[in-house]
């Protein structure tokens, strides 16, 4: 069976035969970098189109349908338009920070991609503290948002950035708690270990009710962390026009836009990895026949399927719910999600120690 794993291995072998190990490492880094940028571009195009189509169908509309077959080239056209627009820097803005912010946001998004396993054997960096790395880096994106809001010299931007800061910092907590509950079960921070431990069933099903609760809490928390509705207070277009990116135009605006969608992809990929087994096919205990059939579906498809399903759920939230108010948002975190995830973590620890999980 042709799998992506074999391709990467043959490339690696071919390079090793030709060059010295240092050059190979450099070359591979370049290839990986190009792949990530390519992935970003493709993800941006696909996810924006997906969002527009999903919203259109929920709103009894057709959505983009003029550019290309069934509107598939709409986002390409939009990107071209944005690329040709003038990138304005407002008078009175801190020019360095203002221009740096979108790049910072996108670089953070790129860095989180490193330990994500896209398919069997496709992982940029299988670091032994993968989960810790992800939680640590993802909290950096708030710096970019704060920078953009502050440097714009606009009150709406400033308000949006401050909201975003308060929001991301609080929701990190319950997202982290949910991640720890899975770490407690697996006993390892390495992404590949977490995936392997779900060989005979996903943690969502194996870990009883606590796993489901922490899955739900994780989804809510990451929706808030990526500033998506109903937690899109940092942008809140009916209150703050566009929040922290009010003053951005052209390609720099596009970078913020891209970063939002890539972040959604990443958090959904992490949720899929931790709770739904990543690239691991759906295996049920010892049903050998069933498991073998499931194995025939390529691992990359499993991973993408799970991730895109979660992305769809997050989009579904966005096009159904009204926005929360800032104090309600913080109430939800500190009064509901955090206590719940703490109790949940305790339960999970008991389950793990007693070995009650399947």
């Amino acid at each position: 069976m042709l799998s992506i794993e074999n391709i990467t291995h043959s490339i690696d072998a071919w390079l090793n035969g030709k060059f010295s190990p240092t050059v190979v490492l450099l070359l591979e880094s370049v290839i990986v970098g190009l792949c990530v940028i390519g992935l970003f571009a493709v993800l941006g195009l696909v996810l924006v189109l997906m969002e527009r189509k999903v919203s259109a169908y929920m709103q009894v509309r057709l959505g983009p349908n003029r550019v290309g077959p069934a509107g598939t080239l709409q986002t390409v056209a939009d990107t071209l338009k944005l690329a040709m627009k003038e990138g304005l820097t407002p008078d009175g803005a801190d020019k360095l920070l203002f221009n740096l912010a979108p790049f910072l946001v996108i670089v953070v998004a790129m860095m989180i991609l490193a330990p994500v396993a896209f398919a069997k054997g496709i992982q940029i960096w299988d670091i032994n503290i993968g989960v810790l790395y992800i939680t640590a880096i993802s909290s950096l994106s708030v710096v970019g948002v704060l920078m953009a809001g502050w440097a714009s010299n606009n009150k709406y931007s400033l308000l949006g950035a401050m909201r975003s800061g308060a929001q991301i910092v609080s929701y990190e907590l319950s997202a982290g708690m949910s991640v720890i509950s899975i770490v407690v079960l697996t006993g390892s921070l390495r992404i590949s270990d977490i995936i392997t431990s779900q060989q005979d069933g996903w943690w969502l099903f194996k870990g009883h009710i606590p796993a489901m609760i922490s899955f739900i809490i994780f989804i809510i928390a990451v929706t808030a962390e990526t500033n998506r509705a109903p937690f899109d207070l940092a942008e809140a277009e009916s209150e703050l026009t566009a929040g922290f990116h009010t003053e951005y135009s052209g390609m720099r605006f596009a970078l913020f836009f891209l970063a939002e969608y890539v972040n959604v992809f990443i958090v959904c990929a992490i949720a899929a990895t931790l709770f739904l087994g990543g690239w691991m096919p759906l295996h049920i205990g010892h049903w050998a026949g069933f498991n073998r059939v499931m194995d025939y579906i390529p691992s990359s498809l499993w991973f993408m399927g799970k991730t895109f399903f979660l992305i769809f759920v997050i989009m579904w939230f966005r096009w159904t719910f009204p926005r929360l108010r800032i104090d309600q948002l913080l109430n939800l975190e500190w009064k509901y999600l955090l206590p719940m995830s703490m109790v949940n973590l305790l339960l999970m620890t008991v389950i793990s120690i007693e070995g009650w999980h399947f």
Partner: protein
Amino acid sequence: MIEELGTTEQGDLVINLGPQHPSTHGVLHLVITLSGETIRKVEPHLGYIHRSIEKMCESLSYRQFIYVTSRMDYLSSHINNHGCALCVEKGLQIEIPERAKVIRVLMDELTRLASHQLWWGAMAMDVGALTPFFHAFRERESINDIMEETCGARLTMNYMVPGGVMADIHPNFQKKVKEFVRYFNTKIDEYDELVTDNIIFKSRMKGIGYLSPESAVSYGCTGPTARGSGVSCDIRKLYPYEVYGRVSFEEVIDGGGDCFARYNVRMQEMRQSVSIIEQLIDNIPEGEFQAKTKAVLKLPKGEFYSRVETARGEFGVYIISEGGTTPYRIKFRSPGFSNLSALDHMARGHKIGDLVAIMGTLDLVIPDIDR
């Protein structure tokens, strides 16, 4: 003078909300003073769409000036025209045919429904839910189609003329309205499912923007804004005009005084409007649709005032006639103007997000305020 923008002496932030802002529904300009996210003061700056309609009307004849009033509260243009036509008829002392009365009331209620539907969508959009807007427009579209068929236009109909209505109803009118009522009755429950029952929406609305009955009266609030504070002020019920005295409907009053009460009043009013339409649609009497009037209308010397209930509240037309073919002075008492004056009182101490929600429940139409 517009304040020195920036911060106040106490270090509060001064923000211009509008005139170009997604949630001011037009060109309303609010200068808000913020302490953190909490509102200290809201000050409306009006006039971005002031056309001085009152001055314009002084040079238009009694047939001509009615069409201008469609451009004030464009969402209840029928009802505005109705108020003007009533005032002219009062001056001319003519009785309009029974058929015209029923048609007028039917059109008013359809307009009220369309206006409330748009408000519902825009209100949900203000608190961040974008989908209801499109669902509301779907139903509004059917009303617009009905209007288009009978009146010839979708928004600014100019269908009410002194003496009755401009044309008889279209042969398909009754059938289409009945179809619409049947369709809408299934959809209004979806409105509740999607927005009203939603826990986020409820918590955004409850206890926000409290307006006591005393201040509602003192600020001159009318319509759903005042009825949401428990003040009975429905002109249709208190001073019935046309056939409102004969149809049975309830004046919806909710004593809550907060945003949710105002929201609830409008939602229930939609149901009441549907019930009025259901009562009248099969009982349109035969006969003329327009009373005989002279080609050139001249009002006797005197003052005439008529009040009607638009979707936003009490609309008053005050004509002072010197006996000529044009009014000497005309004053439109628009509901939005008085309702807006209570905004500062309601919004103080709340967050920016709440201000947007309060503005949503006031259902402001800016041309109605600026005239």
